[in-house]
């Protein structure tokens, strides 16, 4: 589903964010990606959604070589990959419902379909009672749920979560992880980038540890080793 082959990415001359990184993630996997700050985890995510281009090597998503993906094709890639972030990236002047609907509107989906799907997604993430609230009127966990609902509008094959729990307390964080597991159960490949040792150890799923831009450990049932 996801393949990095000898992926190298430099920022400028000096900073090597990815250094000959090889990684293969199969469909339906739940993979945690851990590592110290500044080791290239976010760069990995950006390379997957076509926001940064590799200097060397290859990235494949579902058999599509996106190493040199054209700007005019990035949107096709992004419909196949849902992404959530530490800072949620919700529009502050739209309600949770509107935020999720917006993602469908800007992709030209029919209004009837939007009215159909958005409530379903909000229900899946447990926000059915808060659809008309604005982001500043809900908790961090609820914002992240809305982010997850939005990331699912195109029924993506892959969900990338870059430190989704970074701004949440442990209870809210656990709930978000539960949600990711649930989404994974429906068949979506989930890549979870995190610093949270407890979560990783409790998951008992594959753990990929990145050090200095390359894969240092890759354990099928992994622990947070650092």
């Amino acid at each position, binding site marked *: 589903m996801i393949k990095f082959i000898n992926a190298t990415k430099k920022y400028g001359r000096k900073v090597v964010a990815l250094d000959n990184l090889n990684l293969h993630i199969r469909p339906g996997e739940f993979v945690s990606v851990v590592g110290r700050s500044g080791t290239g985890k976010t760069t990995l995510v950006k390379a997957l*959604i076509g*926001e940064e281009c590799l200097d060397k090597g290859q990235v494949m998503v579902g058999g599509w070589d996106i190493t040199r993906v054209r*700007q*005019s094709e*990035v*949107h*096709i890639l*992004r*419909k196949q990959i849902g*992404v959530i972030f530490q800072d949620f*990236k919700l*529009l502050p*002047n739209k309600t949770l419902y509107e935020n999720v609907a*917006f*993602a469908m*509107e*800007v*992709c*030209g989906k*029919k*209004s009837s379909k939007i009215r159909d799907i958005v409530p379903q997604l909000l229900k899946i993430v447990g926000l059915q009672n808060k659809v008309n609230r604005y982001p500043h009127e809900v908790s961090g966990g609820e914002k992240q749920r809305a982010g997850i609902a*939005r*990331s699912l*509008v*195109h029924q993506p094959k892959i969900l990338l979560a870059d430190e989704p729990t970074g701004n949440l307390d442990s209870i809210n964080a656990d709930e978000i992880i539960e949600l990711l597991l649930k989404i994974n159960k429906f068949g979506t490949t989930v890549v979870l980038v995190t610093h949270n040792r407890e979560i990783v150890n409790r998951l008992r799923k594959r753990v990929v540890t990145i050090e200095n831009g390359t894969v240092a450990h890759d354990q099928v049932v992994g622990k947070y080793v650092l």
Partner: protein
Amino acid sequence: MISFLRIIRFSFQDIIRNIWLSLITISILILALISVNVLLVLNLVSETTMGAIEDKIDINLYLTQDAKEDEILALKAKITNLPNVASVGYISRDEALVSFRSKYKDNVEILQALRELGKNPLSPSLTIKPEDASNYKGLIAHLTNLDEDIVEYKNFDDHEAVLNKIDAISKRVNKVGLYVSLVFIAISILMVFNSIRMAIYTHRYEIGIMRLVGASRWFIRAPYLVSAVTYSLIGVLIVIVAFFPFLTLLHPYLQAFFVGYEINIFTYFTENFAIFFGLQFIGAALISGLASLIAVAKYSRV
């Protein structure tokens, strides 16, 4: 179709939500358009000035007092057939006297002198208007070669000097006008670019999210292009509405300035209405559209 309507809706929401920024953008477009129109007015004024001066420099052939009417008419026909002659006017002795009298109707002494003289002291003359004022030389050469007994006086030297000077002035005026226009237009374009960039800068977050959730580049740009066209349309309409009253105020001054010369600023603008304002709209839309595209490209990263 859904997308199209949605794009229009996005665009209008964007204009309304950021009404102040929209108004600023429109105002700057209006300023730019006004400067273009002022340049058009200046252009007309300078053209009319040049035309008026060139018009004043007809060539006069003074004929002998006893020249016969049929000889004069024959000469007139002959000159009319010369190349680069627009028209030849014949002023008979009587007509010359009439216009002389009316010219000095308030000057008692001159009229008194005329009366004392007892007869018409004026000569008949031919007034030659060249077709193309910038090409006097050839015509003057022809006229110099003219060998007619009834021509009393021909001296074109001073004409040529004056004409050369006018030619030089008019070239310089055009050049300065061109530079001033270019500077003006460059400044206007910069201002339009900047205000559009500012408007889109405030949307960088939203643009980033659109891109993140899989909106195509076209879909991200289109609402801003629609806004750019809307701003341009509103701007041109306001300029049109404001400009004609301004012309009404200006018109009497221009007429007073160009006594005796046809300068109709209204017809200038109404006859060229479609071209002037059509081009201004297209120009404004192109510039602001381009500015939008550049700004969106710049700010479409999360």
